């Protein structure tokens, strides 16, 4: 027993990784809340300072603390990603279930909608929807929320279709169970983990697309320092050698997106019975 004390099994390690990711996200939210408006106050004597002990990310051309601004921007990015991914995943769930259970016509329509939704390059679609919503923060959120569902819809549709033709469900039907009973006891336990993992793995895409869209200048006024806006603004100061304006905020964005990816994959490993016992 003692030998196993320090060697953690994969399951415990997975749990710890998940916990670490959640800790990082709460850290971002907590930090953004603690710093409050500090990232917006201009402090001209302290402008254009490179990173140091007091200000880990330096200050910008108005003397605003970049660390506070980055945290705030990251929080906005995470919020957009959260809202958009939840919205897209819900659409995917409804469409996927409808396609798989409501007959041939609905299936054809949903499959066709997926094809149309994936026909245009994603970024072009985002620009189009954002334009249609009149730009602004609203435009960005709607664009990201309304364009990420096709892939997950296909996954859920395929999963449910495969389940419906499986032997134990046919048997259950023969034993006289109602459709509602089967849906609750046989379909739900299979689809729920798929949905959760799909939702988690949508976050990285949603966050990156939102950041890309705001970087291009769609949405977000300079007063809401979303991370894409932050980086777009710093573009103007790159040639003057203020490298810290771009490096640290971008790096934190990469790390948080990676953390979401890791979180999703670890939750999948935990929920999937095939990898659960490894």
């Amino acid at each position: 027993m003692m030998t196993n004390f320090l060697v953690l099994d994969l399951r415990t390690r997975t749990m710890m990784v998940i916990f670490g990711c959640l800790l990082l996200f709460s850290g971002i939210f907590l930090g953004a809340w603690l710093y409050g408006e500090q990232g917006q106050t201009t402090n001209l004597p302290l402008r254009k300072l490179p990173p140091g002990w007091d200000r880990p990310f330096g200050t910008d051309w108005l003397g605003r603390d970049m660390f506070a601004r980055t945290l705030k921007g990251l929080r906005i990015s995470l919020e957009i990603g959260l809202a958009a991914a939840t919205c897209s995943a819900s659409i995917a769930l409804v469409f996927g279930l409808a396609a798989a259970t409501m007959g041939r016509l609905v299936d054809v329509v949903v499959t066709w909608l997926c094809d149309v939704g994936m026909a245009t390059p994603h970024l072009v679609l985002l620009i189009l929807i954002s334009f249609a919503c009149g730009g602004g923060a609203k435009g960005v959120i709607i664009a990201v929320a309304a364009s990420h569902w096709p892939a997950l819809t296909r996954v859920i549709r395929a999963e449910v279709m495969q389940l419906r033709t499986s032997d134990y469900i046919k048997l259950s039907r023969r034993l006289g169970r109602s459709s509602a009973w089967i849906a609750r006891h046989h379909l739900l336990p299979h689809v729920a983990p798929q949905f959760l993992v799909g939702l988690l793995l949508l976050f990285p895409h949603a966050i990156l697309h939102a950041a890309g869209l705001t970087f291009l200048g769609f949405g977000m006024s300079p007063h809401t320092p979303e991370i894409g806006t932050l980086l777009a603004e710093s573009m103007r100061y790159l040639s003057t050698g203020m490298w810290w304006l771009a490096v640290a905020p971008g790096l934190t964005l990469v790390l948080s997106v990676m953390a979401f990816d890791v979180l999703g994959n670890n939750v999948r490993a935990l929920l999937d019975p095939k990898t659960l016992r490894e």
Partner: protein
Amino acid sequence: MPLQLTKFLFAKTLRLVLLVAAVATLSFVLVSRSPIDPVDAYVGAAVMKISPEQRQMIIARWGLDRPPLERFGRWAAQLAKGDFGVSTIFNEPVTAVIAKRFVTSLWLMVLAWCFSGLLGFALGLIAGAWEESPADRLIRLYAYTMASTPTFWVGMILLMLFSVYLGWTPVCCAWPPGLSAEQATLWQRLHHLLLPAVTLSLIGIAQITLHTREKTIEAMRSDYAVFARAQGESPGGIVCRRALRNVALPAVTLQFASLGELFGGAVLAEQVFAYPGLGRTTVEAGIRGDIPLLLGIVLFSTIFVFTGNFVADLIYYLVDPRLRKTAGGFS
């Protein structure tokens, strides 16, 4: 066999027509619901200077005073004839603008596409052949990191490093300022192209690497690879002589099927490097409310993505004998 091929091509063409019609209808509905006033967006800062009469003239000239349905009918009829209308910001036919800008983008996309494809494939093979080796771990870490990295940020870092600090590459544009595209030499074009293409490639490698790695691992565990192993063949030998042909096909088709992401990446990279290609034009059209141009680009990029997927399917069809026998592989 030719009959089957004809059927395949016919089905694909029909699909393209339906797809473009659906995308055209949906995008038209979207842009006509936009609260952004196209006249305001066109005039921009000079909005106070134009008189109501001038505004009326612009509206009448663009046909904005008609009901949406009539406008859509007219636009669709023109579209069917291949006329995409006139771009409001460039004052040129949309087709001419797209053609000119796309050629500039094509340089960038082709270079990045080939580079990321070849390098990603090679990295994926190495990672898959020596699974769990230090090289595999390194390659995987790189690929996962790049999958989470925004294209524009990579571009900014490269721009800062190579253009601002080292001064090896130009800061902007596709050719030296003051020259036209025709006057610039090939060397100058490539020099301006280098950083945007590297940016796109660094990101683009991720997907193809991970995909090839999966396929290679699958191939290395297959019966024929185990048999070769038992006969004393080294992992490298198995990859080169046995797995390569099986892994190459999915990699090539994936590379063709990822043209949409390539286009999206080009939009971001062109924005960072102020590269005057189609991607930058898309952003301009969106921000300055050039509806005909935006719709034109949406349709053009749809056809572009479709072509990629079509080529991917066609290659499968022509190369893989298993798929040719079961014609049901295509819908």
